[in-house]
């Protein structure tokens, strides 16, 4: 093979590679992929904050009872159950039960309330969400305090 032929061969191979790359770019550039839309701004670095907030415990207690798939789990097992026949739908009778029964049953069933296990922060978030997004009338400050105390006492997280 002469020197000039080798050079021509190299140029052809190079040109071929450029063409392949260009067509690939065109192919993928033109097609819509499922992530081909703008995402929110870059994730802020809150990892230090997250690390500071950690309890110090690995969550080894995550279990599932194969024998009783709908029970035996602390998230949802308590000595209270939704009861459509009860005057207060089975809500535990303690201070604030009337307010919770009254306010929360206007739009939705108490069944969804009684499934939850949230701390004060979690219940505060939910009441805010109800007021701000779901059309619940703003609670009077006194009522809100009683309702929050009831929910985090009777349906608190463990």
């Amino acid at each position, binding site marked *: 093979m002469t020197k000039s032929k080798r050079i021509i061969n190299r140029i052809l191979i190079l040109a071929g590679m450029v063409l392949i790359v260009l067509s690939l770019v065109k192919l993928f550039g033109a097609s819509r992929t499922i992530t081909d839309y703008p995402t929110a701004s870059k994730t802020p670095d*809150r990892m230090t904050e997250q690390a500071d907030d950690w309890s110090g415990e690995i969550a080894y207690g995550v279990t599932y009872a194969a024998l009783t798939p709908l029970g035996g789990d602390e998230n949802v097992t308590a000595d209270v159950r939704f009861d459509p026949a009860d005057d207060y739908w089975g809500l535990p009778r303690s201070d604030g039960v009337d307010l919770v029964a009254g306010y929360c049953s206007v739009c939705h069933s108490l*069944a969804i309330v009684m499934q939850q296990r949230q701390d004060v922060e979690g219940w505060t978030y939910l009441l805010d969400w109800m007021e701000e997004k779901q059309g619940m*009338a703003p609670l009077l400050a006194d009522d809100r305090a009683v309702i929050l105390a009831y929910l985090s006492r009777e349906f608190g997280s463990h």
Partner: protein
Amino acid sequence: MTRQPSEPDKPSRRILLKSITGASFLSALGAPIPFLGNLPTGLVPVALAQGTSSLSQQKPGLTVLNDRPVNMETPPHLLDDAVTPAARMFVRNNGLPPASVDAHSWNVRVDGEVETPLDLSIDDLKTQFETVSLQLQIECAGNGRRFMKPAARGNQWSFGAISCATWTGVRLRDVLDRAGLKENALYTAHYGADTHLSGDPAKHPISRGVPIAKAMEPHTLIAFAVNGDDMPPLNGHPLRLVTPGWPGSCSQKWLTRIEVRDQIHDGAKMTGQSYRVPRAPVHPGASVADEDMAIIESLPVKSLITAPQTGIRVSTGDTIEVRGHAWAGDLDVAALDISIDFGASWSPADLSAPTNKYAWQHWRSEIRLPEAGYYEIWARARDAEGHMQPPIPPGWNPRGYLNNMQHRIAVFAL
């Protein structure tokens, strides 16, 4: 925890029921009731009084998590059929279904970033577009939430917010092609005829959407029938989207409108923390800022053991058949392994190919329990990209989505 007996002078539920439309209710509570005037007065007491009996008539054997809005899941052993019967499809409602539905006058509007907005009756869909029937899985993104610790907000689904039925309809892609997508079309926005729980007509109970590429995926359907029949009222009759492999909330029920948008849709339950997970992993119980959350797209690999039913007693040494289904969002399932020794050893099950993409795949195996005792059968699916189901809930997130941990059943060898 102290429990005080009900005080007789407090308004009981029966008094509330009697007076819910009257001023006495307001004074009894000492507070205004939001949107009381908007509540369909005939409906609310009925909804309160009906309890859960009519639900169990419509969906025998399903577990009622919530009766208003209705949320019901299917115990795994009732999902044994290759194609899920309509009565065994789970229900996840965000609002109140339309009270009366006339399939003949039903209309769906296609508008927004399209060349030609369309108004289509169900008859138009049937006559102007190719009709297709596909087995498609629909799963709630919160399926498995019950096992998140700390507890995550929302309905506490265990394993049964999944179905795979035969849906008949037209490809959303064909309808969007007819309307003609504009160059800036980016995302869909779906609207249905259900009403917000508050009764406020300005609010949508849920309005989600998908990127155009998912809308144009040929398995995304506007469906008017399931298993060759009308779909159950609770599952969206007469018209719904079926967006397989993605959160069920992308499959709008009682579909009335598809708007094409030039931005990511910001309708009800698209924003904040709804159907979103942290962009980066967080420790269990972390509070995560809204801007650190990303929209869920394809759901992860998962499987169910649908036979035998958990708790079964068998004779030691007998050969028993174990079977179920596996699915993996946008992907296929490549393998399914089972273990009878708490995950110490695994053996492959026979796994069928999907009838069509997005149909769940069936698996079966035979086991023999060597000596008397308590056993658990664990099932672990692996998707085409090598992801496997973990034994415990993965990636805790504030709303408890995407728990694809292995399903297990208990078996006693006697």
